[in-house]
């Protein structure tokens, strides 16, 4: 398997081709079998590869599998080449297995939808591209997967293509991501120009060897981070992700929560050798992460669409991951990426199960009291909520606590800056607990507020949907303790080899005195409990009343939150519409001006022509004279 790593992405790609070409004719049974086998095949093949990798590289080296030389032109060269190292292993396991669970879930969720074959074809393609992204051994191959998952995201957000909103949301996602990709591209141009390569190993070793000028490293890091900001939905490019909820819910779980949107975090960790040498860039990462974490959380507080709450929560949690990698706690960032994949996939799939039960309804104002009607969904959802809110000993507690503790104690930044990041993160964590329990109480407690017909149809989802929920809930419960128990940190030990030694840069190690460590854990736990308690008193028994009261007391704030602080509107007014106006001006103004000018030139030429007609006498002797004069002039010019 180790020398055929390319098989791992090829399997789902074959599934994409089969279902894309023949899915419609061969029916649902065929589509289901192909899609599930393809994704399971990738997961099994990946696991075998990981086992073999661990046997071959017990200390965690870099395994390369060159497939062929892809591009060679002038000084630019790149291979199709896949790699396994501790980081790729982690991503591979998360992506393939969570991916498979969501494929399984989709079988039940999409059973009655049109375009079943199309859906699974796209989903398999997504898996293939995501695997290229995490297994590719160079920035360029990563970029192939990076844009490929973007394409799948575009296609799947716009899955319900006969609506107006879904294709528009897909287009927005693609375009906003392209802004980020522009940064990624320019970063690669810089690497080619100054390092002569975009291979991870080569770039890392050049940077780690020292001597690379500071501005260059900072520029590359910031440009790469621009790519991450697009893909991982951070300020100011986060606006596409909430709209992306227009896609089917399992897509939101897989692409817009568990895997694709975390690619930016993966990229920063992959580039840790560069970032550690560019503390200025790291400050930007941490600050953007912290601001996004808090900003998105405030919007999540006052959304009524169950998926929108989860979408803003995803933006916010991604912000936490960037706090982690930004303060140099790369392991903590990846740790949160993993636990988030568990609990957020569980939450999204759970919301899908709720929506399924509610006959397509997504508005929490129409829900309530679902706890007893869909118990498996409720319990799994509750466990995942404990995890995201940061209750010990659920998964999110360990990862989030580690991020916040590292933010406060990082060796890179001045103290006040560390405090700022920590405070923003802590407030965001509080908001997280609050809006998540608001969601739980509005959805599962109180009285049912929907129509009679909806109430009549309420039902628990089929096993293909509940089994993934149960597995993910179990992982959300124990995954954190298993992977990252403080001081017995499996993940930290596992990932250690991916951080090359760098002369002159601080080690990514954090020495915290035990007292502070316990105090911070206590703060984290307290935050979660307080958030939960406030939500409980406001929403458990009184339903929507508390929200109405809030709107009455602070109308401006409530309206701002509800309307996502008018960011979309601001972008429209300051960027989109001026650009459109400019384009119209170029077309109707400049193009017409050019045409007009050339027409005038044309008239002048025609007028000269009229003048010259004077010489066209039809007299051969005159022509001969002109010819003779012409030749003399010509020779004179030449000589």
């Amino acid at each position, binding site marked *: 398997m180790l020398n055929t790593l390319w098989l791992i992405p090829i399997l789902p790609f074959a599934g994409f081709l089969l279902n894309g070409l023949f899915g419609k004719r061969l029916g649902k049974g065929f589509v289901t079998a192909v899609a599930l086998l393809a994704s399971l095949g990738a997961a099994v093949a990946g696991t075998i590869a990981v086992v073999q990798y661990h046997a071959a590289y017990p200390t965690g080296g870099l395994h390369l599998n*060159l497939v*062929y*030389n*892809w*591009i*060679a*032109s*002038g*000084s*630019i*060269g790149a*291979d199709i080449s896949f790699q396994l190292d501790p980081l790729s292993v982690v991503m591979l396991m998360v992506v393939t297995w969570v991916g498979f669970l969501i494929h399984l879930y989709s079988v039940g969720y999409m059973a009655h939808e049109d375009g079943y074959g199309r859906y699974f074809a796209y989903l398999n393609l997504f898996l293939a591209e995501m695997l290229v992204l995490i297994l590719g051994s160079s920035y*360029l191959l990563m*970029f*192939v997967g990076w*844009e*490929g998952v973007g*394409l799948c995201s575009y296609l799947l957000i*716009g899955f319900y*293509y*006969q*609506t*107006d909103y*879904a*294709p528009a949301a897909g*287009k927005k996602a*693609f*375009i906003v991501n*392209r*802004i980020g*990709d*522009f940064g990624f*591209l*320019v970063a*690669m*141009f*810089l690497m*080619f*120009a*100054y*390092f*002569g390569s975009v291979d991870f190993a080569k770039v890392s070793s*050049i940077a780690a*060897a*020292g001597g*690379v*000028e500071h501005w*260059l490293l900072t520029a590359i890091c910031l440009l790469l981070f621009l790519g991450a900001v697009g893909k991982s939905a951070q300020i100011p490019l986060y606006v596409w992700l909430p709209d992306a909820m227009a896609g089917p819910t399992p897509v939101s779980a897989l692409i817009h929560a568990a895997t694709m949107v975390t690619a930016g975090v993966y990229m920063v960790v992959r580039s840790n050798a560069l970032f550690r040498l560019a503390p200025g860039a790291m400050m930007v990462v941490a600050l953007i992460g912290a601001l996004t974490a808090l900003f998105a959380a405030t919007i999540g507080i006052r959304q009524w669409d169950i998926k929108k709450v989860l979408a803003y929560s995803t933006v916010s949690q991604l912000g936490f991951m960037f706090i982690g990698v930004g303060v140099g706690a790369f392991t903590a960032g990846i740790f949160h990426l993993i636990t988030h994949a568990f609990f957020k996939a569980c939450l999204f799939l759970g919301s899908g199960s709720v929506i399924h039960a509610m006959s397509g309804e997504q508005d929490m104002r129409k829900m309530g009291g679902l706890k007893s009607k869909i118990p498996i969904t409720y319990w799994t959802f509750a466990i995942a909520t404990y995890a995201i809110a940061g209750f010990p000993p659920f998964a999110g507690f360990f990862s989030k606590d580690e991020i916040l503790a590292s933010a406060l104690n990082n060796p890179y930044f001045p103290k006040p800056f560390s405090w700022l990041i920590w405070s923003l993160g802590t407030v965001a964590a509080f908001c997280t607990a609050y809006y998540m329990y608001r969601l739980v109480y509005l959805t599962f407690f109180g009285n049912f507020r929907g129509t009679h017909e909806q109430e009549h149809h309420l039902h628990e989802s089929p096993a293909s949907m509940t089994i993934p929920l149960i597995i993910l809930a179990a992982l959300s419960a124990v995954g954190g303790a298993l992977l990252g128990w403080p001081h017995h940190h499996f993940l930290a030990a596992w990932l250690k080899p991916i951080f090359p030694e760098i002369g002159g840069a601080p080690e990514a190690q954090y020495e915290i005195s035990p007292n502070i460590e316990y105090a911070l854990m206590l703060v984290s736990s307290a935050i979660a409990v307080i958030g939960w308690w406030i939500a409980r008193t406001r929403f458990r028994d009184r339903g929507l009343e508390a929200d109405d009261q809030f709107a009455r007391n602070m109308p401006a704030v409530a309206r701002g939150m509800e309307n996502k602080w008018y960011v979309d509107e601001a972008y429209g007014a300051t960027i989109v519409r001026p650009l*459109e106006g*400019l*384009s119209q001006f*170029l*077309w109707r103004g*400049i193009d017409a001006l*050019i*045409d007009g000018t*050339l027409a005038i030139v*044309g008239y002048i030429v025609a007028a000269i022509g009229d003048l010259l007609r004077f010489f066209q006498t039809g007299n051969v002797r005159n022509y001969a004279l002109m010819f003779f004069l012409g030749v003399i002039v*010509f020779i004179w010019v*030449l000589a």
Partner: protein
Amino acid sequence: MNYILSITLWLPVAAAVILLFFPKTAASAIKGFGLLASLATFVASLGILNGFHEGVAGLQLTESLAWIPQWGIRYALGVDGISLWLILLTTLLTPVVFLSSWNTIHKHPKEYVIAFLIMEAAMIGVFVASDLLLFYVFFELTLLPMYLVIGVWGGANRIYAAIKFFLFTIAGSLLMLLGIIYLAFAHFHDTGVLTFTITELYGTTLAPHAQVLLFFAFALAFAIKVPLFPLHTWLPDAHVEAPTGGSIILAGVMLKMGTYGFLRFVLPFFPDATAKYAGLLIALAVIGIVYGALVAWVQPDMKKLVAYSSVSHLGFCVLGIFALNQTSIEGSILQMVNHGLSTGALFLCVGVIYERRHTRLLADYGGLAKTMPVFATFFIIAMLSSVGLPGLNGFIGEFLILAGSFQTWPRATIVAATGVILAAIYLLWLIQRVFFGPITKEENKNVREIAWNEVVALVPLVVLMVWIGVRPNVFLRKMTPSVQQLLQIVHKTDAGKAMIAGVGRRVSGVGDQNRPHEAMLRPPTPDPRLPLSGGVR
């Protein structure tokens, strides 16, 4: 002596002559024969590919006969890494045109087929001619059939568009003719030999001011053809009025005669002026990239949208050429082919729906993915190729152009790279407007799905998009020696040396890993880490 170039060149002409004897009414037989002839030409051009030696830099498969000996004009042909793929693009797109217009041309089918066959021969002639005057004859000869195609089979405003097309292009090329004659006389003045053979004219010493004048005479002709901002305004009109086949050939091949001209004549004949004025051309190219993309975005007419997108895409090609390094020029040549495939496919697709709905206005569409799912798939693939999605051809070309140009012109390249964002904006808008959303117009509910002939025309284009995207080296390695040789000429000049030194200054960011600066502009030494598997470079 190998006559494969002449065979490829004259096959369509012979077919056109035979077609003269077909009765006007036998439409199917005429179209069938035309298709067959163009396919035979394509097969012949595969013979060129087969006979092409990869490691050779200069012209290959050459033929040379005296044509007008007293003036030193020869019938001289040859092919190298710069022209090879453009010849194949021409011979590929002509059968595609015949296939796609199988059911759409009812007016004068015989003249239509003959016009395209003559056009094909003329375009092949442009790419294989190695005598300046022979080139000029073919260059001008392409105008006539295209003028007729637009003027006879075009849309409502076809006469205006045809004349505008004709006047623009001929205005440029007449100046070039003067330049050609001057060049030949200058060579005559030096050596006493009157010749128009390109290889002999290379290295003609020109007075600096003369070189500058000639540079602009040639550059103007090619810039109009490309078209380079601000000389592009003929293109949208010509495309909008041209029939589908005309648009495919116009965008697919004819625009490349401009970029090809830069590479074949402007760079090697006037290297000093090239190095000196590269900045001007790059500025215009970059403006064109952004300008074309922005204007494309606000077009209500989808054919105009694709036409303006060509202005943007060809801007990339010109940027790559005048960035004057190995990567950017190889990328530029590849992008010429890519643009022929993707824009050819886009125009074909636009023609498919125009044929069914008789409107080009975006506002008249919406929701067609429901009624034409197979067609939608093809259209989206063509769009993705054009937008530069990795895995397809467009990405390779754009990436090489930008990554290469960045080494010599970093700031201009960054501006150009925003074209990548803008392309997504206007192309996704096009797709959304045509295919997605609810069907709001009654006429869109029962649109006929794509027909077999259209599928057969599109499939080879899609196959090539994937092939170039996955295995670009197959295409790139045939260009390398010719591009290297071309660059040696330019880099030998004083201005070229200054340019390389400029790159050296820019590359001071790295300490020990600092590679020799001039290496940036040369092909790399093979990386010993990489086993060269399966004969792939």
